[in-house]
């Protein structure tokens, strides 16, 4: 493995930052980003930064490019123009390191219906940058699915499936959460739960980028939303 910082759980410390000359200020930095889909420019010249401890909302009408922006940061969509930087380095160049730092929750849950919730979380834990000291059972309890560990995901409701997908976030050391409509199908308690998870994540130095149609009330530092017309 050539990546020495393969599983470093947190953002580079100032000492290691000084060692790498290219590292500059922001955790996540989006510069002049332009994304095109089906010959239609969704957005262009998009600039924003995200620092540790900050959460930022992405707002806009359906089809305005919220999901595309999140997927571009994940590396699924290649932007037409512009760069995305992680601690000053182009994410294309530090792909695997960057991927160890992000947790993505998209429209699709990314969990298998044929497996139990516990089996799903074990897979997620093994595939990602696993956090020490958090077991899948603990994550399920935290997310409000205590006693459902042997339930096949197929038998769960839409909201419960969403919760299983959210439990994945708790199992990784990822610093950047990219959540596409995380509140879909969740009940009021579920929404409060996700908000408290986001608060915890940001208080401990994490970052979050959230697209949502719901009003999100967070105690942590919420930056000016990114608005798409």
């Amino acid at each position: 493995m050539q990546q020495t910082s393969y599983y470093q759980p947190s953002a580079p410390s100032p000492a290691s930052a000084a060692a790498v000359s290219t590292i500059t200020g922001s955790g996540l930095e989006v510069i002049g980003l332009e994304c095109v889909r089906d010959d239609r420019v969704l957005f262009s010249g998009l600039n924003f930064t995200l620092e540790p401890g900050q959460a930022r909302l992405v707002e806009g009408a359906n089809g305005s490019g919220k999901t595309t922006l999140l997927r571009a940061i994940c590396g699924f969509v290649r932007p037409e123009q512009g760069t995305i930087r992680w601690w000053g380095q182009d994410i294309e160049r530090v792909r695997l390191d960057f991927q160890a730092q992000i947790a993505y929750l998209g429209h699709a849950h990314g969990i298998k219906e044929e497996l139990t919730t516990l089996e799903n979380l074990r897979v997620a834990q093994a595939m990602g940058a696993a956090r020490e000291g958090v077991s899948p059972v603990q994550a399920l309890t935290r997310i409000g699915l205590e006693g459902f560990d042997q339930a096949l995901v197929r038998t769960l409701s839409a909201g419960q499936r969403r919760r299983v997908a959210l439990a994945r976030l708790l199992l990784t050391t990822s610093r950047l959460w990219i959540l596409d409509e995380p509140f879909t199908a969740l009940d009021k308690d579920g929404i409060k739960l996700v908000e408290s998870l986001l608060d915890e994540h940001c208080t401990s130095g994490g970052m979050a980028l959230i697209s949502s149609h719901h009003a999100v009330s967070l105690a942590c530092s919420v930056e000016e939303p990114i608005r798409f017309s």
Partner: protein
Amino acid sequence: MTGFRLFTAFYTLLRRDLLMAFRHRGELANPLLFFVLVVSLFPLALGPDSRTLAPLAPGVIWVAALLASMLSLEGLFRSDFDDGALEQLLLSPHPVAVLVFAKVLAHWLITGVPLIVLAPLLGVLLHLPQPGMPALMLSLLLGTPVLSLVGSIGVALTVGVRRGGLLLSLLILPLYVPVLIFAASAVGDAAHGLQVGAQLTFLAAMLVLALRLAPIATGAALRISVG
């Protein structure tokens, strides 16, 4: 430490796919059933005479195995693509080629190995001479993983296309041809009591090449399909 984590990820993914296949045993049997049905139709159509069947046996068994393999491959990434597990796989900090290899290996264990086990039975059905049997099994052992590996590239490219079945066949059948030629010729020659080291060595070479390169290509193709 990172090597251990990588192995854990590989093993977990392999186990997950095997477990899911085990919970869908019905679907599991489909390619195998296809393989047996196609081969067993030949004696019915051509008559049970060993002089007619024996020369055809290597080709018939291999063509059926090839088609069964292609049929089963189509679903390799389908459900992962639909439920978002593919996105999570691509976002894993582990090299995607290794994870892809776990999936292809699981697929081969589920669909390829049963073909190898059943092949001698079908060989008997088609009056394949006794000396051809070891070559038949060996050629399947070396050849079917190549089919799975090479096929996975085509599947990865077409997973985003609805009803991409025909496109998939057009993409990967030409790449299957060398395997078919060498494998069928190995079995045919062995049945006549000839040396088949050359053909089997060539199949082994193709397997090594596919093992090394196909997962990388499949990973890249998946990235294109998800985008």
